[in-house]
């Protein structure tokens, strides 16, 4: 009969408890990492830039269930440019590098992939136009924030957006302003769908 000292048995018991605790800790950390990666996948970003002259527009859009912040760098070339906002406010920019930030809050709930899984595209000009060379607002659940610089806008630009019967108004938010003059525009946007 082999006699095993009590101290050795105690040591084995202690070391196996320590190892089991460490394995549980590894498991817990792995679960936390998976949760963090899932959370980080709800962040989205967008970037666009363009040179504008004449009357142009900056169109910022997002899904209603997302928060978004856009940073707009306006770099004027020769003469001052004038910004006109939706409420009619005008602002003249004279400095060569002007930066503005736009925050668009969450205004609706996520209705599920059945509703938002489809890719929503619409021209900023008019939703009824069958053909338009202008860039499109392009939103989906994988790309819930979007920014566009649209050159030489027509007078009825985004006239549809105020229409309460327009079917996409319940899913997207659009913010836009016009720029009169020559400038380089860089827009970075980031959003989170939580």
């Amino acid at each position: 009969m082999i006699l095993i000292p009590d101290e050795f048995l105690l040591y084995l018991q202690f070391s196996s408890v320590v190892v089991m605790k460490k394995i549980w800790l590894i498991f817990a950390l792995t679960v936390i990492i998976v949760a963090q990666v899932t959370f980080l996948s709800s962040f989205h970003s967008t970037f666009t830039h363009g040179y504008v002259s004449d009357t142009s527009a900056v169109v910022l859009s997002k899904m209603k269930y997302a928060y978004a912040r856009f940073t707009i760098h306006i770099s004027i070339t020769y003469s001052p440019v004038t910004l006109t906002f939706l409420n009619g406010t005008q602002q003249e920019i004279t400095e060569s590098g002007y930066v503005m930030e736009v925050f668009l809050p969450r205004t609706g709930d996520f209705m599920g992939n059945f509703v938002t899984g489809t890719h929503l595209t619409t021209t900023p000009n008019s939703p009824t136009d069958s053909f338009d060379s202008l860039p499109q607002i392009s939103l989906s659940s994988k790309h819930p924030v979007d920014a566009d610089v649209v050159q030489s806008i027509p007078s009825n630009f985004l006239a549809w957006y105020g229409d309460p019967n327009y079917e996409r108004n319940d899913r997207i938010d659009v913010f836009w302003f016009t720029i009169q003059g020559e400038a380089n525009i860089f827009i970075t946007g980031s959003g989170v769908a939580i």
Partner: protein
Amino acid sequence: MEAKLSSKMAEFMTALDQVKKYREILASMTDFTIIILGTIVAALSFTSVMRLSSIFIIAERGQSTPLIFLFFTIFPAGIIAAVWRVKQRIKSVRIGEWKTKLNEGAAGAIELLQSLNWETIFSDIRYAKVGFILYGIAKILAFWGLTSVFLFVLSGVVESTLHMSIDYIVVMLFSLVTVLILSRNDLRKRYDQMGRLDWLLWELRWFESEFRGANFEA
């Protein structure tokens, strides 16, 4: 003759001490994994906070540079801590406890041999090999991750200053090749050590069978 026996025994016990240290590498892999996973959790938490603050808090311009610097110090700090922990555990292995016994001469040497648990020694050598391989792979992966992060930052700088687009797969492959080239001496040492451990295992199996058959008389 007695001196020769003692010196051979000292060589053998030193080799066993080395095996004990390698065996500890396998045991310390849990600590290594915990520290690396903790580093990833810290880096991801930091990223989440930074991303949330960039949307919900109007950050002062110029604050992002120290934050990015802080973010990129998390990885090297984690890897250094993990490697340090493994080294500490290897250092804490008690070795050379046989020296006093061996000083007693041939009788001490034989007593020492008789006290050895051969099956434990063989299994220790096998575990030592696994630990040696795993630690080698883990170290390469950790340094690969670190080099990739560094090269991603560098490629970001190159992209923004020279307006060149760099393929991320190329960056990953380049960092792997760089790490393999830089750690070629370590890899060669590990490969040689594997061969030595195999050789030691076979020699000890032969010795153990001979030793069992031998009849020692005082």
